[in-house]
C-alpha cells in the first residue's frame, strides 16, 4: 500500500481508520516471528513453507484471502519459531516451535476457520489498542469449541504476570508496515504532543509520569528533558542509544526489530519537548536486522511526512540519522557514544559538565535508551497519572528483562516494577531444570552483580537492586544453577571489562587487568591467602578513581560474588576445589568402568584423542592429555563420565 503523506492529525485519523479496517478485515492473518531469535531457530524456513503452501493452493483457483506476514518477537523465545493465526470472528491463536512441515496444516486450518491441532500455545481474545486504552474482541457470535479449548494467555505461567507496554506491538504487528503501526494507534501521541501541547507541558507530563532511564542509570527522564530544554545553545540534539552492549540483554534489539516506529515516535515527541531538530540513532552493527528495520521505518516516516519539515503542521521540524556502532562496549556510555558520533574514538570524558548542556559537538544533547523512547508515546497518549499508577513509589511503569541462562522458560519478559525476583525467575521462568537447584540471578550486565536465591523476595526496582550491590542496568537477568561457578562468573565479567575498557583512565585500565589476573589465578587453583583483601582494595580504588561508569561499576561482579558466595572463593583458594565443577584446572574427568558400554562415542568426540578403548569394553581417559573440554560428557549416553 502506497504511503500517503500525513500532514495533520485529521489525516492521521483517516489513515488509522482505513488501516484498522484492513487489520480487522475478516480474513485469516498468519504472522511468523522473524526477529533475530526467530530466524536463529528456522523461522525463515517456516515462512517460506507458508508462502509456498498458499501459492500451491491458489493454483488454478481464485486467490485465497489469507494474509501472511512477518512480525517481531513476543518475548517467548523458548517457543521460537512462533506463528500467530488470527481466526476471524474467533481469536488469535499462537503456535510454538513450528516446523516447515506444519505449514500446510496451518493454512488449511486457517482457511477452514479452525484450530490446527498441533503445537498450540495459547490464544488472545482481543486486539489491544494499548495507547488508546481500548480493545476489540475478535469474537463475533459463538466461540468454536476447539478454540475454547485453547488456553488463554492469561492462564499461561509465562505470560500471566506480564504487562506489555514497551513490547505492546512486538510479535503482534508487521514491523515493516507503517500502516499497521498507525492502525494500533501509532503516531497519535506525537500528533497530540505537537498540536495540543506546549513543549513545557510535554516535559511536565513526562516528569509527572515518573519515567526513568531504561538503559541502566535510571535517571528521571523528565528532569533530563527539562535541563536540556533550558540549556542555552543551538542546535540541540536528541540521541537514541541503541548500542545495547550488555551481554545477556537484548530487549532493545527486540523492540527495534519488532516495533521500530515506536522509537521514532518517542524521539519526535522528545525533540519537540527539548527543542531539537536533529536526532541520531546509534545502533550496534552486531544487530544487522535491527539496522535494516530501523532504516526502513525511517524511510517510511520520512515519506509519510512524519519526519521532516513542519510535522503535523505544528511548525516543528525534525530529522533522524542512523549511525552504526563499530563494536565497542564503552560506546554505550553517553559521552563515548557522542565522541563516536563525531567520528572520534569512543572514549568517555569526565561528566562534571553534563551532556544535556554540552554534549554532541558541545551542544545540548538529550540521550535516552531505546526502551525509554519507546515508552514516551504511551506516557503522552495515556497520561502521566495512568502511567504512574503502574509500578512502585520510586520506579514507575514496567521494565523488560531478558530472562536467560539456566531457567526453563527463557525470553523477554515485561513486568511491572516492584514484582519480586522470585516471581520473575520461578513463576515466569519456571525455575531451573529438574535435578538442579537455583543458585543466583545476575542482573545489570557487567556493571551489576549476582543476587543469591535467598534474597529472591526482593522487589525488582532501581533502589532495591542497587541496595543488594547489583543494579537494574539494561535488564539482563541471567539465571544460574548449582552448576555455575560464581568465581568463574566474576572472572568472565572481568575478562569482558578488561577487553572493553577504553584505556583512557588508569584505575579502570589497570584495575580490570589486575583483578582479572587475580581471578584467573584463583580459578586455576593458584589463589593466594591475601587475594580476597587485594580484590577489595583494587575495587575501592576503581570505584573512587574511574572516569566513567564502566570503571566505577566494574568491581560490582566481584564484590557481589565475594559478598554472597565467599565460601566458593575460599574453596578455590584454600582447598583448591571448584564446588560447581566448572574451573578446568580444579577438576578431572574419568570414566566409570561399570557404567561405560564401550560405544566409542566419547572416543570420537574427544578433540585431543585422550580417550582410548575398544568397542564394548570400558574406555579410559588419559588424564594428562585431557584438556577437560567436557565434550565427552556431553556425548555420553549412559552418564558414565564423572567429573570430580
Amino acid at each position, binding site marked *: 500500500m502506497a504511503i500517503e503523506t500525513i500532514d495533520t492529525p485529521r489525516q492521521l485519523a483517516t489513515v488509522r481508520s482505513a488501516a484498522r479496517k484492513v487489520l480487522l478485515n475478516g480474513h485469516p492473518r498468519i504472522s511468523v516471528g522473524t526477529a533475530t531469535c526467530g530466524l536463529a531457530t528456522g523461522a525463515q524456513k517456516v515462512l517460506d513453507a507458508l508462502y509456498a503452501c498458499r501459492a500451491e493452493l491458489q493454483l488454478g483457483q481464485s486467490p485465497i484471502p489469507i494474509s501472511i506476514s512477518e512480525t517481531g518477537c513476543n518475548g517467548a523465545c523458548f517457543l521460537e519459531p512462533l506463528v500467530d493465526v488470527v481466526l476471524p470472528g474467533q481469536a488469535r491463536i499462537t503456535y510454538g516451535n513450528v516446523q516447515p512441515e506444519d505449514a500446510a496444516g496451518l493454512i488449511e486450518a486457517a482457511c477452514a476457520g479452525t484450530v490446527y491441532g498441533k503445537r498450540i500455545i495459547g490464544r488472545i481474545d482481543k486486539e489491544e489498542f494499548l495507547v488508546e486504552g481500548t480493545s476489540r474482541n475478535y469474537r463475533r457470535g459463538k466461540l468454536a469449541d476447539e478454540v475454547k479449548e485453547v488456553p488463554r494467555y492469561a492462564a499461561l505461567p509465562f505470560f500471566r504476570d506480564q504487562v506489555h507496554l514497551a513490547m505492546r506491538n512486538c510479535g503482534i504487528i508487521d514491523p515493516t508496515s507503517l500502516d499497521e503501526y498507525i492502525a494500533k494507534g501509532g503516531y497519535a501521541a506525537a500528533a497530540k504532543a505537537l498540536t495540543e501541547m506546549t513543549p513545557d507541558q510535554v516535559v511536565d507530563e513526562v516528569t509527572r509520569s515518573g519515567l526513568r532511564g531504561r538503559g541502566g542509570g535510571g535517571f528521571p527522564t523528565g528532569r533530563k528533558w527539562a535541563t536540556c530544554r533550558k540549556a542555552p545553545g543551538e542546535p540541540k540534539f536528541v540521541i537514541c542509544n541503541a548500542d545495547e552492549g550488555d551481554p545477556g*540483554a*537484548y530487549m532493545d534489539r527486540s523492540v527495534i526489530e519488532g516495533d521500530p516506529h515506536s522509537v521514532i515516535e518517542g524521539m519526535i515527541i522528545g525533540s519537540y519537548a527539548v527543542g531539537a531538530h536533529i536526532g541520531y540513532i546509534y545502533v550496534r552493527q552486531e544487530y544487522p536486522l535491527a539496522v535494516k528495520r530501523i532504516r526502513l521505518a525511517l524511510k517510511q516516516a520520512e515519506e509519510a511526512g512524519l519526519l521532516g519539515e513542519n510535522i503535523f503542521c505544528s511548525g516543528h521540524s525534525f530529522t533522524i540519522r542512523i549511525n*552504526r556502532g563499530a563494536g565497542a562496549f564503552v560506546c554505550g556510555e553517553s559521552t563515548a557514544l557522542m565522541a563516536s558520533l563525531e567520528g572520534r574514538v*569512543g572514549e568517555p570524558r569526565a561528566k562534571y559538565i553534563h551532556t544535556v548542556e554540552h554534549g554532541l559537538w558541545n551542544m545540548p544533547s538529550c540521550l535516552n535508551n531505546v526502551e525509554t523512547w519507546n515508552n514516551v508515546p504511551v506516557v503522552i497518549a495515556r497520561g502521566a497519572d495512568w502511567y504512574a499508577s503502574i509500578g512502585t513509589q520510586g520506579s514507575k511503569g514496567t521494565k523488560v528483562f531478558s530472562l536467560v541462562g539456566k531457567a526453563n522458560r527463557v525470553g*523477554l519478559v515485561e513486568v511491572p516494577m516492584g514484582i519480586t525476583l522470585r516471581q520473575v525467575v520461578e513463576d515466569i521462568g519456571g525455575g531451573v531444570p529438574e535435578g538442579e537447584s537455583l543458585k543466583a540471578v*545476575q542482573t545489570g550486565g557487567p556493571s551489576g552483580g549476582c543476587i543469591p536465591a535467598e534474597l529472591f523476595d526482593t522487589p525488582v526496582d532501581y533502589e532495591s537492586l542497587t541496595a543488594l550491590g547489583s543494579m537494574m542496568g539494561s535488564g*539482563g537477568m541471567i539465571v544460574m544453577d548449582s552448576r*555455575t561457578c560464581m568465581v568463574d562468573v566474576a572472572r568472565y565479567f572481568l575478562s569482558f571489562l578488561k577487553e572493553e575498557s577504553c584505556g583512557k583512565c588508569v584505575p579502570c585500565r589497570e584495575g580490570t587487568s589486575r583483578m582479572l589476573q587475580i581471578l584467573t589465578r584463583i580459578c586455576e587453583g593458584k589463589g593466594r591467602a591475601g587475594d580476597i583483601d587485594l580484590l577489595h582494595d583494587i575495587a575501592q580504588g576503581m570505584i573512587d578513581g574511574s572516569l566513567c561508569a564502566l570503571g566505577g561499576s566494574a568491581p560490582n561482579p566481584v564484590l557481589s560474588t565475594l559478598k554472597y558466595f565467599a565460601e566458593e572463593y575460599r574453596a578455590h583458594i584454600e582447598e583448591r576445589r571448584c564446588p560447581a565443577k566448572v574451573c578446568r584446572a580444579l577438576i578431572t574427568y574419568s570414566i566409570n568402568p561399570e557404567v561405560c558400554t564401550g560405544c566409542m562415542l566419547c572416543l570420537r568426540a574427544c578433540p585431543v584423542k585422550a580417550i582410548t578403548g575398544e568397542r564394548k569394553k570400558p574406555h579410559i581417559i588419559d588424564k594428562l592429555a585431557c*584438556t577437560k573440554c567436557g565434550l565427552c560428557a556431553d556425548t555420553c549416553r549412559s552418564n558414565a563420565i564423572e567429573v570430580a
Partner: protein
Amino acid sequence: MTETVGAPSPKAKPDATPDNGHRLDEILERYSPEPSSLISVLEDLQEELRYLPREALERIATTLGVPRNQMYHVATFFKAFSLTPQGRHMVCVCRGTACHVKGADKIMNKVESELNVREGGTTEDGQFTVQSVRCLGCCALAPAVMIDRDVFGQVTPKQLRNILDQYPNGNRND
C-alpha cells in the same frame, strides 16, 4: 579486534582487485566529506573488502580531512575494523553471559578444532575468520553462533560441522 599495522599475511590474500579504488569512491560518495563520516566510511569499507587496506586509509584521511593519527586511532580502537585481511566468512562465537554459562567455551573449542585455527585467526585457505563476540542478543537461544549475517541458536558442538559446511567457497556477499 586491534591488530598491529603491518603487511597483510600472504596466505590470506583477499581478492584484492584493481577496482578497490573504485569501490572506495562509491563509499565516499555516500557520506559528506567531513571528519564525522569517518566511522561510517570505515564500516562500509570493512564490509566490502573485509579489511582496511593502507592505501585506502590514506585516501580516506585526505578526503575527510582527518589527521592520520586520529584515523589510525579509530581504525584500531573499534573491534569491527581489521587492518589485515579476514576470511570470506566471519564465524562469530557468542561469548555473552548466557552463552558463557551455557557452554560457549565448548563451542569455541569445537570451532577451533574443526577449522584448525585459533580464535582471532584466519584459516589457511582464507575461507573463515574465527572471532568471539560479546553478545549477539540471542541470549534465550544460547549458545549462539553467527556466520556472516546468519545467526544459529542452541548450537551443540556436534552440529558445528554441518553448520560450517553450509558455507562453501562462496563469497560472503553472495
